[in-house]
């Protein structure tokens, strides 16, 4: 009983010091592929963020997800034309390949629907391993699409873009709230 109380006090005290968590999040955000893989574990082990830090992260998460969405729309749109614009495809693919490895670091504990307005479902933190696996699948699909975009092979670009879309949907279907 006393142990529980002490633990609770320790946790509460920790909540008052968001600086460390911010650094962690910032480090993860700038992380490359290798860092992101380990950050999934780090995020799962980390203690919940303080409210301010959490809301800030959630806002940035939304902005970054929108960037990925905008990139997808740009690619989808140009692929529908008779002569797809390779420059648009390449810059969009680069944006996605840069952001995709960061996704796991965008979902530390304490950034769920109980904290603030978000479409992220609580299931993300109930099934961390499945969520991590789906994030990795997205990261890999984004990298493969980026490679195809660099090669300029239109058939490969279309195929990898379809795969990428499926990896978005696989995660969104389970872990994003439809409004």
């Amino acid at each position, binding site marked *: 009983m006393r142990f529980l109380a002490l633990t609770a006090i320790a946790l509460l005290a920790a909540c008052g010091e968001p600086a460390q968590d911010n650094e962690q999040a910032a480090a993860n955000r700038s992380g490359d592929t290798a860092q992101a893989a380990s950050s999934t574990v780090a995020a799962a082990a980390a203690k919940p963020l303080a409210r301010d830090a959490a809301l800030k992260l959630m806002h940035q998460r939304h902005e970054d997800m929108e960037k990925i*969405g*905008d*990139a*997808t*729309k*740009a*690619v*989808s*749109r140009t692929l*529908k*034309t008779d002569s797809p614009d390779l420059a648009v495809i390449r810059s969009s693919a680069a944006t996605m390949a840069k952001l995709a490895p960061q996704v796991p670091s965008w979902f530390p504990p304490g950034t769920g629907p109980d904290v603030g307005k978000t479409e992220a479902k609580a299931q993300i933190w109930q099934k961390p391993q499945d969520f991590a696996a789906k994030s990795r699948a997205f990261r890999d699909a984004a990298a493969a699409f980026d490679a195809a975009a660099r090669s300029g092979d239109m058939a490969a670009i279309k195929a990898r873009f379809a795969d990428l*879309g499926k990896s*978005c*949907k696989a995660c*969104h*279907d389970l872990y*994003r709230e*439809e*409004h």
Partner: protein
Amino acid sequence: MKAPVWDLPTRLFHWLLVALVGFSWWSAENGEIDLHVWSGLAIMALLVFRLLWGIFGASTARFANFVRGPRALSAYLRDMKGWRPIGHTPLGALSVLAMLAAIAAQVGLGLFSVDDDGLSEGPLAHLVSLDAAEKAADLHDAWFDVVLVLVLVHVAAILFFRLFLGKKLTGPMITGKAELEPGIEPLRPAKWWAALLCLIAAVAFTRWIVAGAPPFGG
């Protein structure tokens, strides 16, 4: 004596519309975007059919017969129990027009919408800018509340007729028949092949939209 008041095409239109609006709602809420797009296109085909059936259909389906002016409306509102003819009442006609217009607007917005992920879009979304397609999607999202309110008003009106005017309206929309008082003009049905032609035209129009409305798009 029971006599026909709603012909089969009108009833089929009505209940298919109920089912598809419900299905569109469900598919939107559950992220089934591809099914949602097809459901919306099916609704468009239904609406086009209904517009044509409002011109060439049976007497109670024709707009010219049931859309009335303000004088007929105020006369009806003064004496609702005294209304005898079959078909839509002057007030019900406004409800029908409002629902048709609201659902048509909803379908129209959907045609130009792109989803959040950029993975699916309406068949005409590529004709407008991405910004406009996103705006259309936001409006499409918000406008459904208008559709819902009109449907609720419609259902409330049916309950009102049942509870306060002693008229059962749901049965006739299923069976097509209702008690007809002596001296009331009966239903003038339309030819079956007219319904077929309207259906063909509606499907053809929808296919043209699905193709991206060539030669303007597609």
